[in-house]
C-alpha cells in the first residue's frame, strides 16, 4: 500500500500510515465543500465541516501519541490510540453515510465517488485485523490468522450465499449455519469473531439463539448482529434488549454492513484485550499479595513477563524487585543469625574481667550526686568507663571519666562542649547516645547510653577473623552510623573495634562519637608528656601527621576495621609506633584477598579504596560505602 514508511522506525511508519488517510479525508471534504457553495447546500456543508473537524481531531490524537521525537511505542499505546481514533472515525463515517443516503440528487458528477474515497480513508484509521505490532489476540479469536471470522446464520440458502460471498469479497472468513442449533454447535466448535444472526428462523429462532449465546460465559462476549426485515421492529427491539450489538435491515446495504461489522469487530477486539488485561492484572495482583505474605516464588510471573506490553513490563519489574528483596532479606537474616552465634560463642569463651585498680571511683560510690557506680567496663587513653545507675531517672548509664590533663584548660573544655552538643543531636540505632558532659569534685565526665554487649575487639580476640558475612553485617551498620554522624557534622576520629559494640541482637552501636576531638587539642599541648591518645593502627595518614581531618578520615579507619574483620590482622603493622607511622605513610596496604580466600572482588576493591592514602582517592562518603556494601548483599 505505502512505500513510504521508513522501516526502521515503527512510530514514524505508523504515523505515516495514519496521517495519510486523514490527509485524504480533509482534502476530499474540503474539495466537496468548494463544490457545494450556496445556501441550498447548507446541510451538506455542515456534514462536511463536521467531517473535517473530526479528521483534525484524529490528527491531533495521532500527533500526540506518535510524536516525531519518539521511535518506540508500547503495543498497548497503539491499541489505545486506535481506540481513541474510533470516535472521530465513527463521526466521519456517520456523516458520510448520511450524505450518501441523501445523495439522490447528487450535486456534482464526482460527489458519490469522492464521498466513498472519504469513507475508504476513514476505514483505514482503525484496522479491522489485529493491529500491526499490536497486542496478540486473545486465545480463541478467529482473527489470529489475520482474517476476521464471521458466522452467518440464516435458514435461506440464497441469503447465506449472497451474504457469504459479499463478506468474503470484503476480506472476511465466513462460516455459515442453516439454523439455530447448527449455529450453537459451530460456536462451540470453532473460533468466531462475530455472528450475523437472522431473526426469523424455524425451530430455534434468532432470539432463542441469542439468549443461549448470552447465557454461556464462553460465548457471552461474542458480538451478535441481527439480520431482519425492517418491518420486524419489535423483534429487533427484543433482540437488542437480549444483548444483540446491532441489527442489519434486509436488503443489505453493503456500506452499512461493512461499517457495522467493522465496528463490532473493533468492539470485540477491545473486549478481548480488556479481558486479557484483567486476567493478567489478576495474576500480577496475586503475585503482589504473595510478596506481602513473603510467599513470592522467583519466576512466578515468568509467563506474563514474556508479554510485549505494559503488563509484561510490570511483571518483569515486579519479579526482579520481589526476588531481589527476598534474597536480600534472607541473606540479612542469615548474616545476623551467624553474628548472634559468634556473639554467643564469644560471651561463653571470654569473661570480661573488671579491674578496680587506680580508679578514681569505687564500686558502690555515688558520683555527681546521682550516679551509683556498679562496675568498671573498661579503660582507655581517655579515661575509665563505668557502668552506673542514674538514680534520678532510674536507668543504667555508662559513665566515662576523663583524664585530668585532657580537660585542663577552658579552651579544650569549651570546644569539647560544642562537640558534645553536636553529638547529642545524633539519634540512630547504630550510635550510642551521648547524654551529658559535666564535672564533679574536679573530675570531668561524660554519660552515655549503656549498651549491654561485646565490643568488636572482644569478638576479634575470641574468634580471630569474623568472615565475609559478619564483616558485611558490621561494615554496613558502621557505614550507616558514620553517614548519619557526618551528615550532622560530627567526625568520629577514633573508629576502632574497641569502640564498636554489638548488642545481643547483632545491632552495632558505635561509641565515643566526637570524644577524640578532646584528645587532639590536648595532644598538641602535651607532646612533651608523651601522651598518646587514639589508636595509631586505625588512624588515617592525615590524622597521623596531625593535619586537620574530615569525614574521609573515619572512612580510612572503617577500612582498617573491615580489613581486620576479614583477615584477622591489620593492613599495615610495625613493631613500634614509629615503624607503623612509616608504613602507613609510605606503603600500600595489601588486598584482603591476598591473605584470605573467598573475599568477593567488590569487597576487596572497596577495602582497598577505603585505605587509599590520599583522602581524595578514597570512597567519597559513608553513604557510598553503605551502598556498595549493600550491593554485595
Amino acid at each position, binding site marked *: 500500500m505505502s512505500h*513510504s514508511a521508513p522501516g526502521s522506525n515503527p512510530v514514524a511508519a505508523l504515523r*505515516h500510515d495514519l496521517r495519510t488517510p486523514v*490527509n*485524504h479525508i*480533509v482534502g476530499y471534504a474540503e474539495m466537496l465543500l468548494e463544490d457545494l457553495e450556496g445556501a441550498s447546500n447548507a446541510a451538506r456543508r455542515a456534514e462536511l465541516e463536521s467531517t473535517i473537524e473530526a*479528521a483534525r481531531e484524529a490528527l491531533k490524537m495521532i*500527533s500526540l501519541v506518535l510524536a516525531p521525537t519518539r521511535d518506540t511505542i508500547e503495543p498497548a499505546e497503539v491499541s489505545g490510540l486506535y481506540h481513541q481514533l474510533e470516535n472521530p472515525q465513527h463521526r466521519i463515517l456517520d456523516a458520510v453515510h448520511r450524505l450518501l443516503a441523501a445523495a439522490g440528487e447528487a450535486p456534482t458528477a464526482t460527489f458519490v465517488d469522492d464521498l466513498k474515497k472519504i469513507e475508504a480513508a476513514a476505514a483505514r484509521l482503525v484496522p479491522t485485523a489485529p493491529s500491526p505490532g499490536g497486542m496478540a489476540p486473545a486465545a480463541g479469536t478467529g482473527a489470529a490468522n489475520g482474517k476476521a471470522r464471521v458466522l452467518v446464520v440464516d435458514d435461506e440458502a440464497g441469503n447465506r450465499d449472497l451474504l457469504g460471498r459479499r463478506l468474503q469479497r470484503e476480506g472476511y472468513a465466513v462460516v455459515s449455519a442453516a439454523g439455530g442449533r447448527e449455529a450453537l454447535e459451530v460456536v462451540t466448535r470453532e473460533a468466531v469473531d462475530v455472528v450475523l444472526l437472522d431473526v426469523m428462523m424455524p425451530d430455534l429462532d434468532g432470539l432463542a439463539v441469542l439468549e443461549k449465546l448470552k447465557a454461556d460465559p464462553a460465548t457471552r462476549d461474542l458480538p451478535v448482529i441481527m439480520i431482519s426485515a425492517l418491518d420486524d421492529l419489535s423483534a429487533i427491539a427484543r433482540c437488542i434488549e437480549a444483548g444483540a450489538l446491532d441489527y442489519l435491515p434486509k436488503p443489505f446495504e453493503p456500506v452499512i454492513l461493512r461499517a457495522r461489522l467493522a465496528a463490532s469487530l473493533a468492539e470485540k477486539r477491545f473486549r478481548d484485550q480488556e479481558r486479557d488485561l484483567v486476567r493478567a492484572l489478576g495474576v500480577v495482583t496475586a503475585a503482589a499479595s504473595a510478596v506481602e505474605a513473603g510467599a513470592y516464588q522467583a519466576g512466578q510471573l515468568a509467563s506474563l513477563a514474556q508479554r510485549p506490553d505494559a503488563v509484561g513490563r510490570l511483571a518483569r519489574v515486579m519479579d526482579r524487585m520481589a526476588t531481589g528483596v527476598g534474597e536480600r532479606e534472607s541473606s540479612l537474616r542469615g548474616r545476623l543469625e551467624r553474628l548472634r552465634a559468634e556473639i554467643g560463642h564469644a560471651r561463653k569463651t571470654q569473661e570480661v574481667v573488671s579491674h578496680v585498680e587506680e580508679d578514681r571511683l569505687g564500686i558502690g560510690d555515688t558520683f555527681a550526686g546521682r550516679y551509683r557506680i556498679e562496675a568498671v567496663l573498661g579503660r582507655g587513653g581517655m579515661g575509665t568507663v563505668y557502668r552506673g545507675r542514674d538514680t534520678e531517672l532510674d536507668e543504667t548509664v555508662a559513665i566515662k571519666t576523663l583524664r585530668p590533663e585532657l580537660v585542663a584548660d577552658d579552651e579544650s573544655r569549651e570546644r569539647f562542649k560544642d562537640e558534645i552538643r553536636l553529638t547529642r543531636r545524633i539519634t540512630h540505632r547504630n550510635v550510642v547516645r551521648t547524654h551529658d558532659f559535666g564535672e564533679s569534685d574536679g573530675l570531668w565526665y561524660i554519660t552515655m547510653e549503656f549498651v549491654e554487649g561485646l565490643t568488636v575487639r572482644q569478638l576479634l580476640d575470641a574468634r580471630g577473623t569474623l568472615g565475609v558475612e559478619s564483616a558485611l553485617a558490621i561494615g554496613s551498620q558502621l557505614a550507616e552510623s558514620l553517614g548519619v554522624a557526618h551528615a550532622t557534622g560530627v567526625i568520629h576520629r577514633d573508629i576502632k573495634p574497641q569502640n564498636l559494640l554489638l548488642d545481643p541482637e547483632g545491632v552495632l552501636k558505635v561509641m565515643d562519637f566526637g570524644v577524640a576531638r578532646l584528645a587532639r587539642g590536648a595532644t598538641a599541648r602535651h607532646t612533651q608528656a608523651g601522651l598518646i591518645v587514639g589508636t595509631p593502627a586505625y588512624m588515617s595518614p592525615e590524622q597521623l601527621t596531625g593535619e586537620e581531618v574530615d569525614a574521609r578520615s573515619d572512612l580510612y579507619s572503617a577500612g582498617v576495621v573491615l580489613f581486620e574483620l576479614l583477615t584477622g590482622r591489620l593492613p599495615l603493622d610495625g613493631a613500634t609506633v614509629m615503624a607503623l607511622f612509616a608504613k602507613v605513610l609510605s606503603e600500600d596496604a595489601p588486598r584482603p584477598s591476598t591473605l584470605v580466600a573467598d573475599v568477593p572482588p567488590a569487597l576487596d576493591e572497596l577495602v582497598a579504596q577505603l585505605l587509599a592514602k590520599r583522602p581524595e582517592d578514597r570512597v567519597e562518603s559513608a553513604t557510598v560505602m553503605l551502598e556498595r556494601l549493600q550491593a554485595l548483599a
Partner: protein
Amino acid sequence: MPRILLVEDNEMNRDMLSRRLIRKGFEVDMAVDGKAGVEKGRAGGYDLILMDMSLPEIDGWEATRQLRASPETKTVPIIALTAHAMAGDREKALEAGCNDYDTKPIELDRLLGKMNALLPPKPA
C-alpha cells in the same frame, strides 16, 4: 497558467491534490515515482515541482538531487511534501536542494502561499 509537476505515488493524494490545484488555475502534470518524476521534470518546462519525499524506485530526496544536477531543472523551484513530520525533515529537504517544505495533511492555502512565493509573478 503555471505548469506544475506533482510527483506522488499515492493515488488518492495525487487525485486530490491535482484536482484542487487545477481548480485554482494551475496546469498539473503527474508522475507516480521518483524515476518518472526526474524524467518528466527534465523533459520539461515546469514552473514548479511538488515532490513527495517517500517514493518508490528512487525517493524524493534522491530525485531532488538528480533534478538539481541537471542543467534543465537546476533552477526549477521544488517544494518537498512529507507526511512524516520528522524532526529534521525540513533541514534535510533544504539540504537536498528543495526550495521549501510542507507537511501533509496539506493545508491548501498554506501550500498555495508557498507555491506563489516561488513562482514567477503572474503576467498582468
